[in-house]
């Protein structure tokens, strides 16, 4: 195998690497490796000058291969590939050695760390020598989108895309659009009408020529890949239309939302046992009906609102459900408005009034004389029946933190602010659209800060409360963000697919079809004529399972060939 002209670039990452690894020594060592014609150490390879250094060398030194020893390839591989590309070098002829996350940041300064860095660089050099130029595939981008869930997030996303003239299939499991927001009367902190917003959205969605609303429907199967999905949707509604429908879509937005925490799982509030202990959603019902009453029809003299039911607790959910505090304050206002002579108390842990206008709202509810009692995180108030002679129905015992007293709070009506939790069908969704869940069941975004709406599966996005608890504005923003991603792709018409995929060498293929079975994406077809298998590149996700399985070593994983990996092994151990 002929020797290639290789450039090695060792990044100091400011002091992140240089403090632990002797970068200059690494660069010098690399200089002596076969084929290496340039070897440099620099403060920030990722910076513009760093990248220019590389592109300059590629041109001046006619480099055929580039090795960058820096941070994790998950961080900057795209950056350096782009740099190589600008200098006319095929991006796949660049290899990174991860000497930061997996070396300088995890080892103490000294010989060992520097030696390890040298080994990793050597491995990269051996490997890159055996790299081949690869071409990205470009496939068509279907301009249609599948939106799962007809709540506020789903409808916002749908309208965003449809207004751009792109077809949307909006699949909703229930009989009606609206989701959880439709169960709400007013929204915090300005007490705007949720009903008006819903009417507006639902009307526009239903009347929009580019939105196909599919009620009482479910996604059964999602095949294909970004830009070219086939979605199988089943309609449960008895009546018009076929029970099963298959639509072509380029992208999928998952907006399946949340379900409220089941208050009966908590014993010490007496929910289900005491008639006048109700959940926030039950109270919304009362508000809509204009009847804030006790079960026996009397008006409550004392209303108590208990925060963090099922949230911020070790027993149930560790996380904060983000919207309950403001909703609770909203209830305080609403009770005071409907029943001016009623006393309202909020039993809370920390008042999460962080949103725009929320702190003002909090102050305002204090001004209308709401009594706030604070209990400790990890502790919980206890509800019991009041004794005969008390002027209330129930008593809430709280270890009140701000006074250090153990307080008995009178209550006639108790509202439990139930938190949000992942829907029980969300695991099923993850398998359908191939995304993952965190330990709480929320869908995982591809990056919490840089890509809060994308997922690890191209073309599948998440928006709204299915990613984590969220209020309406944040859900709408996410929904639009997802729409933006998709519009971006659509407006470019075509999509580039990574060139890393498997390929069958049909001369070696014995047609045993083991690979057909093994491929999780059924990307390998068996050709009855030639008695050989072949890979549908666009479907291949490059896991390489088939490569390792093929008894006759007939399959090659591009960019992860046996030869390349053997070279890498030899490199780290040489």
């Amino acid at each position, binding site marked *: 195998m002929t020797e290639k002209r290789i450039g090695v670039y060792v990044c100091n990452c400011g002091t992140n690497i240089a403090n632990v690894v002797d970068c200059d020594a690494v660069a010098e060592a690399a200089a002596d490796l076969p084929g290496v014609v340039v070897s440099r150490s620099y403060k920030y390879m990722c910076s513009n000058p760093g990248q220019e250094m590389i592109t300059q060398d590629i041109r001046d030194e006619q480099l055929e291969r580039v090795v960058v020893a820096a941070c994790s390839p998950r961080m900057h591989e795209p950056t350096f590939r782009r740099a190589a590309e600008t200098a006319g070098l095929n991006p796949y002829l660049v290899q990174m050695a991860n000497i930061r996350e997996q070396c300088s940041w995890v080892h103490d300064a000294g010989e060992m760390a520097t030696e390890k860095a040298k080994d990793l660089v050597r491995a990269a050099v051996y490997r890159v020598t055996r790299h081949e130029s690869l071409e990205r595939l470009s496939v068509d981008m279907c301009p249609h989108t599948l939106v799962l869930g007809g709540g506020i997030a789903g409808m916002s996303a749908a309208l965003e895309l449809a207004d751009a003239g792109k077809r949307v299939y909006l699949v909703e499991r229930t009989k009606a659009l609206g989701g959880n927001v439709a169960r709400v009367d007013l929204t915090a902190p300005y007490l705007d009408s949720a009903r008006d917003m819903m009417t507006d959205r639902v009307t526009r969605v239903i009347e929009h020529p580019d939105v196909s609303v599919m009620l009482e429907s479910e996604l059964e199967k999602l095949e294909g890949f970004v830009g070219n999905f086939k979605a199988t949707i089943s309609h449960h509604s008895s009546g018009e239309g076929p029970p099963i429908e298959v639509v072509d879509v380029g992208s999928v937005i998952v907006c399946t939302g949340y379900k409220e925490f089941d208050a009966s799982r908590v*014993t*010490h509030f*007496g929910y289900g*046992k*005491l008639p006048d202990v109700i959940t926030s959603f039950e109270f919304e019902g009362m508000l809509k009906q204009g009847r804030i009453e006790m079960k026996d029809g009397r008006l409550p003299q*004392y209303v108590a609102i208990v925060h963090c039911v099922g949230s911020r607790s070790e027993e149930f959910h560790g996380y904060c459900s983000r919207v309950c505090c403001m909703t609770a304050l909203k209830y305080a206002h609403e009770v005071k408005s409907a029943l001016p002579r009623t*006393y309202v*108390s909020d039993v809370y842990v920390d*008042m999460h009034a962080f949103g725009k206008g929320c702190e003002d709202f*909090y*102050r305002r509810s*204090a*001004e209308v*004389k*709401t*009594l*706030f*009692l*604070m209990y400790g995180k990890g502790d919980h108030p*206890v*509800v*019991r*029946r009041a004794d005969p002679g008390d002027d209330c129905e129930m*008593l809430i*015992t709280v*270890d*009140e933190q*701000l*006074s*250090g*007293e*153990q*307080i*008995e*709070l*009178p209550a006639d009506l108790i509202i439990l602010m139930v938190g949000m939790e992942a829907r029980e069908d969300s695991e099923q969704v993850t398998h359908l659209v191939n995304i993952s869940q965190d330990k709480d069941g929320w869908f995982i975004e591809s990056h919490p800060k840089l890509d809060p709406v994308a997922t690890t599966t191209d073309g599948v996005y998440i928006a709204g409360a299915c990613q984590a608890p969220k209020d309406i504005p944040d859900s709408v923003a996410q929904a639009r963000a997802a729409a933006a991603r998709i519009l971006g792709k659509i407006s470019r018409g075509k999509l580039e697919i990574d060139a890393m995929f498997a390929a069958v060498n049909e001369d070696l293929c014995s047609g045993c079809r083991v690979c057909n079975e093994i491929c999780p994406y059924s990307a390998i077809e068996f050709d009855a004529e030639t008695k050989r298998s072949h890979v549908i590149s666009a479907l291949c996700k490059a896991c390489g399972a088939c490569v390792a399985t093929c008894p006759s070593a007939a399959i090659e994983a591009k960019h992860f060939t046996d030869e390349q990996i053997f070279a890498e092994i030899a490199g780290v151990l040489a």
Partner: protein
Amino acid sequence: MATRANPKLIEELEPYGAEDVMKCYHCGNCSAVCPFSADPYVFPRKPMRYLQMGLEDKLKGQLDPWLCYYCGECSDQCPRDAEPGETMMSLRRWLTSKYDWTGISRLFYQSWRWELGAIVLVAILTAIGFTLFGMSQGSLSAYDGPNAFLPSESVHVFDWVLAGVLMVFLLSNAARMWWFTMGRAKDLPTTLGSYIASLWMLPTHFFTQIRYSKCEHKGPWVTHLALMLSYVTMLVLIMFFLTDMASGPAIDWSVHVAGYLATAGLVLATILFLRNRAKKSSAQYRHSHESDWIFLVLILVVALTGILQHILHRSGLDAAANITYIVHLSLVVPMLALEVPFSKWSHLAYRPLAMYLAQVRATALSRARAGGVDPARPGAERHTQVHPI
């Protein structure tokens, strides 16, 4: 044992001036900036918390409100305009009405009409009483001498009787204050020794109000002290030197000079206070309860009529002097009879007493803590098992 919250109490307190306390979200800033707040008396936040939750007994048992001189630092820095200073003030009013077993104080604080009405009534009765008495004694045209309209000896006797009655009220209320704050607290290991050891605080704080000087701005302290000293001087003159005061027409400098100084002090101080309250010049003057106005105005007019009557007497206009004297007395009597035990005046007595008791209690607490138990920290009995339904 859990304490029952009473969301209704705040409504009872509002007439006393506690209108903003519910705004407090307990950042703790006030207690930390207060120059008087120190272990074991951390306020204003803690009393405000008790008030928000309506823990009446806790509040009644508190000396903290009396340890506050209302310099206004807390209110100025409050992030939510919860007016901690004014809340302390309101609590003092409320406590005064709680100490008072007759219930009169409560009426006065809850409605200025009651207070004003009572003052007018007592004034009229006094006027009538003294006029009739005067007629029975001598002639209106004679101020002193054998035919005097109101012989100072008899007025003196009246003064002493009145003083006696007021003392009974004041002392019985003070006794209730002691009972609420100290007597009831069984777990408090107070000793007679500590009561005696701290006794010196009563006169000291009464006469110097030295704690007040810890405020950043000294002005209010000086004025307040001047007013109080003038008042006391006047009280002493009347209780012990009334005859010399009334004698004349020649000016007897040995006593009158004190009288002039006291009068000047009273007039200037009250005018200054009235001006500040009118202009709402700083935090402690921003909110004025009706009782504040009544008290100041009353003192002012008493001083003015007093000095007027004095001048008239010196200038030989006996009849006019006598009439003015009647007016003066009919203002003095309600001022003493109503303000001293039932209204704002009483803080003159309660505050030094509170500081004294606070000292005794603090000594007791430190002893208790040394012994491991801590009655000051209600936390002591927290975490008692509560049984779910």
